[in-house]
């Protein structure tokens, strides 16, 4: 399952940036657990795991991201 930046996570169409991944590549994560912190306009937002499984990180920290973008996969 894709881990996506939700469309309603922030209001405008600007870019956020991934600040921190709380897990490493390959780690098992539980549904609902915070996976990463994304900064938008100086406010931090958590991205929760949409499902349980093993994490594959697709976007590294300090990389800009847009709403709707896939930042990781859980298998």
């Amino acid at each position: 399952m894709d881990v996506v930046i939700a469309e309603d996570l922030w209001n405008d169409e600007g870019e956020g940036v991934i600040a921190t991944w709380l897990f490493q590549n390959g780690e098992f994560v539980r549904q609902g657990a915070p996976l990463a912190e994304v900064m938008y306009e100086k406010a931090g937002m958590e991205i929760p795991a949409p499902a349980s499984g093993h994490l594959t990180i697709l976007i590294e920290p300090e990389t800009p991201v847009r709403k709707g973008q896939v930042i990781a996969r859980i298998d």
Partner: protein
Amino acid sequence: MSATPRRLTIAKAMSEALGIAMEQDPTVLVLGEDIGALGGVFGTTQGLLERFGAERVRDTPISETAFIGAAVGLAAAGMRPVVELMFVDFFGVCMDAIYNLAAKQSYFSGGRVSCPMVLMTSVGGGYGDGGQHSQCLYSTFAHLPGLKVVLPSNAYDAKGLLLSAIADSNPVIFMFHKALQGMGWLGTVPGSIVHVPVETYTVPIGQAAIAKSGTDITLAGLGVTVHHALQAAVTLLQEGIDAEVLDLRTIAPLDRKALAASVGRTRRLIVIDDDYRSCGVSAEVIASACEGGVDWLAVPARITYPDVPVPYSPVLEHPLLPTAAAIVDTARRMFHRKAA
């Protein structure tokens, strides 16, 4: 016990601990500057105002003497206040309430009036905030009888220590290091973000932890310096030196038993302390270890921040801060190997 990892930053762990305590005990309240709607400048009280309301989560004016003094009175009256001193460097304006009132309430009353108060405060520099916003001041507080002082190096310990601090009937200074806090606008040492169980649990005050066991040398650290020590231990192992990293966790009362046990085995000690050098926790750790009677294989050493105010310019500040490389160099010299 939850099996799968749930990683939290220290900031999240602290606000989680506060939420648990406030849920379980209606006498717990939080006071401080910007701890309400903002959730704390360092994220320590996120979500609390929405859950518990403004009576128990109180933004204060910039009046530390007044609201910390008030916390002492609240504690005497049977409440359990948790008060935030935004930067430890601000203690100058309110120290009387801390060291003359909170710290001596039990003693002056013969134990009949306690002070179950927690003072949480940010410590540490290394990010260019200058001489009045970058200090550690561990020994300034540890030096004063009647205060307990803790400093977690990771989110698991942060939640457990904060719950212990709130449950403690004595005043506890709960320090959190800015380099470990997990704020998005300040770099965070990744090792501070660890698995934190959802359940309520405590970490005992006065108990150090072995962050990495070893046989050849004890590296004693607190807060961010634990992470420097862990990094140094990796390098040293590649050179055949098996270091033990002791996370002090509590600055006062120091776990002298754990320290004695560790140096009793390794017989070499380096203390790493990012506070000012003279009269620091590092000196106390070495003196305590010596008093325990150790057959030293090398003279104990300390790696500290020097006796100068914290300068602003990074080219001035950064060389003064303890690093893993400095630990490795000092250890090599202890083993009579050439420093890099």
